[in-house]
């Protein structure tokens, strides 16, 4: 199978959906002739023109509210925030309107909108360009939350997101954008709510979120040389969350670590731990462990930045500690 980068694969998915459905349009800063800061729309302006690849003023609240209105009335907007931190200016619209319109109208209005942007620590991007906000959106009824980690999933989940009648938050970790991998040709869709087993194993289950899937796989490879068999689960979507796949894995391993670069308190790991404790308590041979980024805004200087996000070494330590329980 041919290989593409994560960004190329997502762009292929977007291009296919725009060709398939003339009601799909993209808004964002520099997503027109420039093709997007992260090349999310490169080459599409020439095909579809300004009305469907709409360069905006720097007015996140404005174009988020606009796209919410457009999604209620027959269009399928894709909001490209570039960095998801910028979407925070639109939180009022997103949480009070975008996520609630379907409920408030009792299903008579639909909300087919995709809210995409880059997340995650790296590149000394510092406080306002490094946030990961998926726990916030996972907490709110009405949103679907997709966090792809492979090029194939970037394409397949984005296509599913664009066809969804629910609002979808689509978060792309910056450290993954240039990673390469096999990507199926043509109409390839990945359903929401189906986790992937990124690496099979039998001793410990590690649920990774975003870039932590890759770091967990790297740690698992090191531990394999020491004779330990680590299973890595990639939820792929946090809402809906495929708990069954996690429970099946824990049933086999008896040990669970949740690795997530974003914050621990009230986070994804807390939720997964609570649900596994509730439904899989008898399968557990050790306490559930979480590995999170430090609970702090993200600093700039490389040694500071490195200190706040868990690396492969941190995953290794966490797995070894859990095996020793």
């Amino acid at each position: 199978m041919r290989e593409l980068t994560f960004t190329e694969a997502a762009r292929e998915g977007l291009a296919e959906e725009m060709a398939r459905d003339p009601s799909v349009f993209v808004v964002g800063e520099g997503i027109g002739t420039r093709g997007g800061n992260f090349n999310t729309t490169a080459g599409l302006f020439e095909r579809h023109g300004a009305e469907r690849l709409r360069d905006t003023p720097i007015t996140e609240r404005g174009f988020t509210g606009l796209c919410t209105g457009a999604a209620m009335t027959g269009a399928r907007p894709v909001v490209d925030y570039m960095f998801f931190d910028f979407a925070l200016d639109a939180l009022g619209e997103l949480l009070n309107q975008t996520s609630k319109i379907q409920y408030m109208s009792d299903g008579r209005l639909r909300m087919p909108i995709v809210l995409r942007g880059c997340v995650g620590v790296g590149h000394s991007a510092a406080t306002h360009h490094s946030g990961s906000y998926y726990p916030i959106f996972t907490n709110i009824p009405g949103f679907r939350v997709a966090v792809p980690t492979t090029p194939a999933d970037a394409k397949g989940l984005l296509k599913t997101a664009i066809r969804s009648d629910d609002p979808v938050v689509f978060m792309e970790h910056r450290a993954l954008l240039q990673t390469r991998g096999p990507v199926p040709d043509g109409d390839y869709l990945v359903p929401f709510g189906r986790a992937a087993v990124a690496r099979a194993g039998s001793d410990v289950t590690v649920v990774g979120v975003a870039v932590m899937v890759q770091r967990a796989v790297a740690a698992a490879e090191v531990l394999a040389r020491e004779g330990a068999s680590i299973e890595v689960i990639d939820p792929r979507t946090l809402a809906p969350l495929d708990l069954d796949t996690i429970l099946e894995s824990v049933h086999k391993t008896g040990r669970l670590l949740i690795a997530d670069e974003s914050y621990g308190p009230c986070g994804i790991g807390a939720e997964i731990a609570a649900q596994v404790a509730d439904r899989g308590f008898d399968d557990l041979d050790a306490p559930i462990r979480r590995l999170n980024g430090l609970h702090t805004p993200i600093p700039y200087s490389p040694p500071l930045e490195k200190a706040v996000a868990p690396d492969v070494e941190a995953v290794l330590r966490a797995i070894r500690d859990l095996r020793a329980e």
Partner: protein
Amino acid sequence: MATVSEVIPGLARERALALYREMLVIRRTEDALARAHAAGLVHGACHTYVGEEAVAVGVSAHLRPDDTVLSTHRGHGHALAKGMSPHALMAELFGRVTGCSHGRGGSMHLFAPEVGLLGTSGIVGPSILMATGAGYSYRLLGTDRVSVAFFGDGAVNNGAFHEGLNLAAIWRLPVLFVCENNLYATEVPFETVAGNPDVAARGVAYGLPSVRLDGNDVLAVHEAAGEAVRRARRGEGPTLLECRTYRTRAHSEGMRDAGYRTRDEVEAWKARCPIARWRDRLLGAGGVAPSDLDRIDQEVAALVREAAKFAEASPWPDPSTATRNVYTEPRETG
């Protein structure tokens, strides 16, 4: 060019009477809701539109069923003018399953997409942005539909006003922005919180044709809105209407209506009642007899009595439906 069927030059008799009837439907329904609130039948807030009827009616007279409206916490009048029945409105405030939002919304969250009401909102500002987006959609999809945002003077100092008007202007979207300047943002006098209290001038600053008018004069609203809707439908872009008006009841039923305005001021505005003014105008123009209007009064009174009975007799929503339609698609897991 006047014809025999016109009571006022340019306005057909049938339309002139419909404007009267629509304003009266709003007034009588609001009166009934205020009584119902006092009687404990309305469970939450109740923001009435009494005194402002000419704005919703004058604008909506130009809208087709497939044109759409987004509105505010004070949205009963917009909903009725766009075609919602008083039955569905009253039942909603009574919390019944027959209400326009099936009991999910109450006074501030009215939905009736089947008549083009895309929602009222408990948050000040978003109607401006979502209506701008509906306009974007209508143009992208190649239709000549028109989108309307109603909002108050309170929204004019909110960022949504700035962002929405600018976006609509730069892309020449088919949107009508209708500011109901009732002089108070909740209970704060607009003039004390506006660096420039001339709302129409602010619209001009964003490149929009902007008109300030007497919002208690239904004919003035009707004329200005007609031109704005025609412009939007022709693809000539958005318009801002600043309609100066006044709410003569409290911000919300049961709230203390004192400490921010005088009784004299309220009485002076009551004397400018848009319905009484229109009645006088119609009778003065000839061609309409008092008995014509009295008959409408009786019909409307009967309609609203029937709506109140319907609402009170309607069933409650089934508690098992409390999470229905959070998502379109079934939850696959979790």
